[in-house]
C-alpha cells in the first residue's frame, strides 16, 4: 500500500478517523496513555493530537484527526483531517464508527477503502447499541467488507485487546476490491480516473470521485500534479458533470448509501422494543423552552453561584490565599527577601537591592502579586469552573442548550452553537475567545468575541463583583440589568451592522449520558494544564510590567491620564489605579474596588457605576493577546477601542441616571 515511501526501520504510523463523538479521543488515550480533551461537543478537538504507543512490542506513532463526516470536507477541521489522510503516509487507518449509527457512518468506511488506504474498522459504542436492542454480525461484516473489523466499547475497555492484535498482525500487502456502484456511475468514474496520470497517495478512483463533486482543493492539487495534462482531466470532468446535469454529490452519496444498505442487510438486527426512556424524557425537558429555560437558570445558579462562587471563590480561595499565602508563604518570602536583599535606597539601584526585592515581594512583586493571584485566587476559581463545565459537557447538555437558544442568538447574528463559548466565557474569557474558532463563519466569531469582551464577566471577576455588590441593596440588580441590556443591544446592533454570511445552525445531539469520572477529570486537568501554560506566564509578565511602571513612575503617569475620566464617572480619582490594574487581570481591578469599598471610600452609586464600568471595560491583557492571536491585530485593536469607549460612556450615563434618581 502506501508504506513504500517509508523506510522499514522507521516508526509505523496509525491514523484514527471517524465522525465526532465516536470515541476517537478515548481510543487515543488508551493507546498512548497520555491525556487529551475527550469531547462530547462536536468541534472541540480542534488540534491534532499525536502520541506514541507500544503495541505488542512494536512502537507506533498515533495521530488523532478531528471529527470527519466524509472525505468531502465542510469545516476547517474536516479539511485538516482529510489533509492528514491524503498527505501523511499511514501504515494503518483505524476508522471508528458509532455502532448505533452504522448505516449512516459506514459510507465513510467505503470511502476509505475506495481510497486504497489500509483500513481497519472499529464498530465502537457497541455496548449502547446492544442496550438499544441492536445486534451486529461482526464476522459477516468483516467478510463482506474485506477488511479487519472489531467490535468495541473503548470507554469500557472492550475490544481494545482485539484491536491491538489486529494492528500487530496487520498485513499491509493485502488489497481489496472497491465496491461497485451503478454501471453509469462506474463508467463516469472510469472516464475521469483513466485520464489521471499522477501519484496522489490515494486511489485515482477517489480523486476522480472528488473531482466530480467539484472539490476545489482536490481540483487545485490535481492541477498542480497533472500540470500539462490537467486540461484533459478538467475537460472530462466538465463533460460528465454536464451530461449528468444533476448534483453529483447527492448521486454519489445515494449510491454509497445503496451499497451500505445491501451490505448491512442481514448483518444488523434490531429489537424495536428497547429504548432509553429516562434519558429521552430528560432530553425532552432540556429542549422544551418551558422547562428548558428554568432548568438552565437552575444549572447556572448551582454551577456558577453555589459551586464556583461559593465553593471555589469562597472556601478554596480562603484556604489557599488566606491560610497558605497570606498566613505562611508571603510573610516567609518577605522576611527572606529582607534578610538577603537589604537596602532602601531608591536613587542608586546599584547600591541597594531595593529594586530586586520589589520585583519579588513588593507591591506588584512576582510572588506577592503574580504567583499569589495565579495560584491562590484564580486557579481555584477556574478549576471549579472547568470541573463543572466538563461534567456538563460530557452529559450532552450543551447541544440541547444550543438548540434552545438558537432563535434568540440568531437575532444577535450568531447561531445557537455560540452558546458554548459564551458559557465558557463565564469561566475564562481568554479560553472562550480561543473556542470561538469552532464557530462556522468569521462573522459569528467576531460577534461572539465582541460580546465576550464586553459583557461576559469571567468567573474570577464574577466572584469579586458579587461580593462587592451584595453589600449594597439593589446594586446587583442594576449591574445585572445593565450588563444584560448591553449584551442585547450590542448583539442586535452587531447583527445589523456586521457584514458577512448568515449563520446556519445544525448540530448532532449526542445521547444524554452520565459523565464518567475519569473522562471528566482528564478534561478538567488538560484545561487547567492549558490555563497554566498560557495564563501563568502572563501573570508574571503583568507583574513585571507593573513593577517596571512603579519603578519608573510610568504607572503613575498612566493612572494620572485616567483620572479625568474617573471624574466623568463620578468616581474618586484613586479608582484610576483600579482600572489600570484591571487591564492586567480583570479581577485585579474588581479586587481593588473591594479594598476601596472596605475602607469606605465609595458610595452606593459609585460602587455600582464602578462595577458596571469595570465589567464592561477592556478585557485582561491575556484575553487581548488571545484576540490578537485568533482575530488579528486589526480586529483586536478595533474591539479594544470600541469596548473601552462603550464601557466609559455607559458608566458616565449610569452615573447620571443614578444620581438623578437619587439611588
Amino acid at each position, binding site marked *: 500500500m502506501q508504506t513504500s515511501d517509508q523506510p522499514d526501520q522507521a516508526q509505523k504510523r496509525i491514523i484514527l478517523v471517524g465522525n465526532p463523538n465516536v470515541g476517537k479521543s478515548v481510543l487515543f488515550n488508551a493507546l498512548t496513555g497520555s491525556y487529551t480533551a475527550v469531547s462530547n461537543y462536536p468541534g472541540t478537538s480542534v488540534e491534532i493530537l499525536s502520541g506514541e504507543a507500544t503495541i505488542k512490542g512494536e512502537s507506533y506513532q498515533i495521530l488523532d484527526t478531528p471529527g470527519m*463526516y*466524509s472525505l*468531502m470536507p*465542510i469545516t476547517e477541521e474536516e479539511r485538516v483531517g482529510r489533509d492528514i489522510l491524503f498527505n501523511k503516509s499511514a501504515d494503518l487507518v483505524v476508522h471508528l464508527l458509532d455502532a*448505533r*449509527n452504522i*448505516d*449512516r457512518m459506514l459510507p465513510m468506511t467505503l470511502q476509505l477503502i475506495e481510497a486504497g488506504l489500509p483500513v481497519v474498522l472499529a464498530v465502537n459504542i457497541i455496548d449502547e*447499541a446492544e442496550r*438499544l436492542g*441492536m445486534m451486529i454480525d461482526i464476522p459477516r461484516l468483516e467478510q463482506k467488507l474485506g477488511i479487519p473489523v472489531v467490535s468495541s466499547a473503548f470507554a469500557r475497555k472492550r475490544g481494545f485487546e482485539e484491536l491491538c492484535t489486529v494492528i500487530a498482525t496487520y498485513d499491509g500487502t493485502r488489497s481489496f476490491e472497491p465496491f461497485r456502484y451503478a454501471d453509469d456511475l462506474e463508467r463516469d468514474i472510469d472516464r475521469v480516473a483513466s485520464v489521471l496520470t499522477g501519484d496522489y497517495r490515494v486511489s485515482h478512483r477517489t480523486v476522480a470521485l472528488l473531482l466530480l463533486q*467539484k472539490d476545489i482543493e482536490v481540483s487545485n492539487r490535481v492541477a498542480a500534479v497533472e500540470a500539462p495534462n490537467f486540461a484533459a482531466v478538467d475537460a472530462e470532468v466538465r463533460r460528465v458533470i454536464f451530461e449528468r446535469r444533476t*448534483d453529483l*454529490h*447527492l448521486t454519489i*452519496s*445515494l449510491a454509497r*448509501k445503496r451499497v451500505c444498505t445491501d451490505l448491512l442487510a442481514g448483518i444488523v438486527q434490531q429489537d424495536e422494543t428497547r429504548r432509553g426512556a429516562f434519558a429521552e424524557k430528560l*432530553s*425532552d425537558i432540556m*429542549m*422544551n*423552552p418551558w422547562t428548558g429555560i428554568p432548568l438552565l437558570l437552575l444549572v447556572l445558579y448551582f454551577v456558577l453561584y453555589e459551586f464556583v462562587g461559593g465553593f471555589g471563590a469562597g472556601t478554596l480561595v480562603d484556604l489557599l490565599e488566606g491560610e497558605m499565602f497570606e498566613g505562611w508563604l508571603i510573610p516567609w518570602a518577605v522576611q527572606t527577601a529582607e534578610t538577603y536583599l537589604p537596602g532602601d535606597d531608591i536613587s542608586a539601584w546599584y547600591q541597594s537591592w531595593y529594586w530586586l526585592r520589589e520585583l519579588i515581594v513588593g507591591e506588584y512583586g512576582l510572588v506577592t502579586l503574580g504567583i499569589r493571584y495565579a495560584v491562590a485566587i484564580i486557579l481555584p476559581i477556574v478549576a471549579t469552573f472547568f470541573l463543572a463545565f466538563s461534567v456538563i459537557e460530557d452529559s450532552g447538555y450543551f*447541544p*440541547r442548550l*444550543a*438548540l*434552545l*437558544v*438558537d*432563535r*434568540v442568538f*440568531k437575532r444577535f447574528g450568531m*447561531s*445557537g452553537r455560540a452558546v458554548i463559548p459564551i458559557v465558557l466565557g463565564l469561566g475564562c474569557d481568554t479560553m472562550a475567545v480561543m473556542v470561538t474558532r469552532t464557530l462556522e463563519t468569521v462573522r459569528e466569531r467576531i460577534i461572539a468575541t465582541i460580546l465576550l469582551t464586553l459583557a461576559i464577566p469571567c468567573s474570577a471577576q464574577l466572584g469579586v463583583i458579587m461580593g462587592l455588590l451584595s453589600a449594597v441593596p439593589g446594586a446587583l440588580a442594576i449591574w445585572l440589568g445593565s450588563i444584560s441590556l448591553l449584551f442585547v443591544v450590542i448583539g442586535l446592533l452587531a447583527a445589523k451592522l456586521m457584514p458577512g454570511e*448568515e449563520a*446556519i*445552525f*445544525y*448540530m*448532532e*445531539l449526542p*445521547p444524554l449520558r452520565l459523565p464518567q469520572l475519569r473522562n471528566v477529570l482528564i478534561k478538567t486537568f488538560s484545561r487547567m494544564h492549558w490555563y497554566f501554560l498560557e495564563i501563568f506566564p502572563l501573570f508574571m509578565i503583568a507583574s513585571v510590567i507593573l513593577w517596571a511602571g512603579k519603578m519608573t513612575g510610568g504607572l503613575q503617569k498612566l493612572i494620572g491620564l485616567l483620572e479625568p475620566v474617573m471624574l466623568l464617572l463620578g468616581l474618586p480619582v484613586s479608582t484610576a489605579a483600579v482600572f489600570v490594574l484591571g487591564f492586567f487581570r480583570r479581577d485585579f481591578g474588581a479586587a481593588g474596588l473591594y479594598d476601596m469599598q472596605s475602607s469606605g471610600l465609595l458610595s452606593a452609586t459609585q460602587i455600582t457605576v464602578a462595577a458596571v464600568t469595570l465589567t464592561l471595560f477592556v478585557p485582561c491583557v491575556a484575553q487581548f493577546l488571545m484576540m490578537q492571536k485568533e482575530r488579528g491585530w486589526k480586529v483586536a485593536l478595533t474591539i479594544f477601542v470600541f469596548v473601552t469607549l462603550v464601557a466609559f460612556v455607559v458608566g458616565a450615563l449610569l452615573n447620571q441616571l443614578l444620581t438623578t434618581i437619587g439611588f
Partner: protein
Amino acid sequence: MRLSEKAEEILEALWIATEEKGELSISLDQLNIGSGDEGLLELGHHAFVEVKGERVSLRPKGRADARMSIRRHRLAERLMMDVLDVQGETAEERACEFEHLLHEGVDTKLCTLLNHPTTCPHGKPIPPGVCCVDAQKSGDLGVVSLTELKAGESGEIAYLAADDSKKMQKLMSMGVLPGNQLVLRQAYPSYVFRIGHSEFAVDSGLARDIFVRKASA
C-alpha cells in the same frame, strides 16, 4: 364554451373585489374598460355579470368561472416564481399570459405538480380545485417541507432543496438523504429530528430545505 382572455381578466378582478375585499360591485373605471367592452358584453351574454350604470357586479351564475379563473392565475404565478424562478414584473406578465393555457385539465396537472398549493406567492388564497379536495380525502398529503410537519410526525425524506452545495453537504452529513426515515421530535424553538438512532437539531432555514413524504397517520 370558452371565455375570452379579456372576459377572464374581468372575472378575476370581480372575484378579488367581491370575494376577497367584500365589495358589492366595482366601477368600469377600476376595470379600466368602457361599457361597450367585448369581454364585458360576453360576460353579460352568459349572465355572469350585471351592469348597472357605471358599476359591474358578479352574478351567482358567474361565481364558479370567476373562482376557477383566479385559481388558474395564481397557479400560474406559483409556477413562474417557484419552479421557473422568474421574478418580479416579468413573472406577473408571464403568469397573465400563461393562465389562459391552463384549461382542459392542465390546471389539475399543474396543481398536482405543485402539490396543491393553498396560496399564491403573494400570500393570497388559491381556491381549491377538485384535485385538491380529492388529495385531501385520500390522505395523500404528498411531499411537504419539514417545517410543515408537527412534532411526533414522521415520514420518508423525498428530496433536498438546498440551493447552495455547502448546505446540501451539511444535510447529507447528518444522514438527511432521500429514502431515509425521519421522525420530527420537536418543532420549536428549533427543529429536532431523529434519523436511525441519531438526533439532530437544525434551524428553520435548513428545515425548510428538507422535503418529506408524510407517513399516513
